[in-house]
């Protein structure tokens, strides 16, 4: 069933200041970058906007700079452009794998880093047509009063499904944000909240400007569980980083697709030579299982996703540590 795009005014500011001014003047406006998430949701009647503020012509959002201190990626850089960029990727493998895992190649030509981070949460009861949702009395995330996933709960359980966020989290990224009260910079984990209906901690009128990655140490990787080999959002995805050498290996993990925000899972102690590898990675697997909270937000059972992502995390970590699978 074809649904029609609601009416809106499409503005294309030429600078960040101009974009911020439009957002301040028009409270009903929404920021649009590549549009691969927002335009689909608008067409399905999930997002209303009187004005669409298109950031495609704002040069300040397309910065891409790597130096001794690290890497700065403008929020408006497309995923395809970042993947093709002539960068030193040796310490950024998780980011490169996450970029390549996003949707399909045509989406990556349009989609931006900022848009991927700020994408809406997803749910079986939300990403549906207007008539489907109306037939189910809508849902807590939008226009309804009940979360059909967890009817006894008091918050929306829609899942955050961005691929880039977990990779950037294990690489220690920060994000810079511009808004009516000036600029601020926060750790990327502080951009998100565990609430499917309000998962971004951006204030009204704020725009995500850039992602800053420190010069990373060690190795990292990203893996994704999905039904098809392309296009699909993750049923679950996990990024793992590993640093250290003789005095032990420190692991950081971050998971997407299972909660309403990306979840960081820190291993409290390094893996040392005295540790039995099987015991260490079994403990890692259990920690991931406890940290995540997959719900009935997809057609795939939550229990399967919980077990799969914990097994994937341990397998990826084993690969980084050079320890063979059991």
């Amino acid at each position, binding site marked *: 069933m074809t649904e029609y*795009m609601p009416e809106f005014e499409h503005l294309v500011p030429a600078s960040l200041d101009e974009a911020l001014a439009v957002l301040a003047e028009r409270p009903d406006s929404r920021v649009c970058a590549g549009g691969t998430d927002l335009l689909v949701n608008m067409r399905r009647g999930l997002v209303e906007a009187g004005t669409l503020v298109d950031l495609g012509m704002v040069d300040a959002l397309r910065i891409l700079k790597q130096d001794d201190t690290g890497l700065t990626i403008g929020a408006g850089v497309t995923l395809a452009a970042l993947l093709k960029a002539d960068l030193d990727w040796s310490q950024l493998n998780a980011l490169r794998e996450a970029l390549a895992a996003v949707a399909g190649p045509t*989406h990556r030509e349009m989609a931006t880093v900022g848009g991927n981070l700020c994408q809406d949460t997803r749910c079986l009861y939300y990403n549906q047509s207007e008539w489907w949702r109306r037939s189910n009395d809508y849902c807590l995330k939008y226009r309804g009063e009940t979360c059909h996933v967890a009817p006894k709960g008091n918050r929306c359980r829609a899942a955050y499904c961005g691929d880039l966020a977990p990779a950037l989290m294990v690489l220690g990224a920060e994000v810079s944000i511009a808004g009516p009260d000036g600029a601020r910079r926060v750790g990327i984990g502080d951009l998100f909240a565990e609430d499917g209906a309000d998962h971004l901690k951006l204030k009204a009128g704020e725009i995500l400007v850039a992602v800053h990655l420190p010069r990373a140490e060690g190795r990292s990787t990203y893996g994704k569980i999905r039904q098809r080999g392309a296009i699909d959002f993750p049923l679950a995805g996990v990024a793992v980083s590993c640093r250290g050498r003789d005095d032990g290996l420190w692991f950081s993990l971050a998971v997407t697709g299972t909660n309403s925000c990306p979840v960081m899972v820190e291993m409290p102690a390094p893996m040392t030579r005295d540790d039995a590898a099987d015991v260490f990675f079994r403990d890692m697997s259990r920690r991931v299982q406890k940290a995540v909270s997959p719900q009935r937000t997809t057609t795939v059972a939550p229990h399967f996703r919980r077990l799969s992502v914990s097994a994937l995390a341990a397998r990826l970590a084993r690969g980084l540590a050079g320890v063979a699978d059991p």
Partner: protein
Amino acid sequence: MSRIISVTINGRSYQDLVPDNMLLIDYLRERRHLTGAKQGCDGGECGACTVLVNGAPRLSCITLASSCDGVNIETIEGQARGGHLSPLQRAFHELLGAQCGYCTPGMIMAAEALLRRNPDPDDDQIRQALAGNICRCTGYGAIIRAVHAAALMMREDLAGAEVGR
């Protein structure tokens, strides 16, 4: 709100007044009567609406027409030249790369973008370039063979042109 956009489509220039909320697929099909690009999923999930914008594949069902001012658009209708099918069109036809044909315009445009940047792709590169295009008839094997055959035709045409120069 509406705005005037200037676009080049398959080598011809147009100026049109388009509403701000008009999608590129609707502009191409309803205003320009170029019905080759297909409306499949209407949500950017199937690739049937793929066209080239400034040489890069673009999903026209999630692109605003008003954002296309000044761009060069290529659709399946512009692929044949002088009454002759393009190498990709010919290969899809001869090697049964098209079954029901609904996904074919999007497949060919995505493959065209690939062959312009990589004249001799391997299987993996073809699979990756077409990963965003879904064929409900599931004829992927024939599609990959057709892209290989078209690549060979294009390389032979190029070699022939260089010999004749």
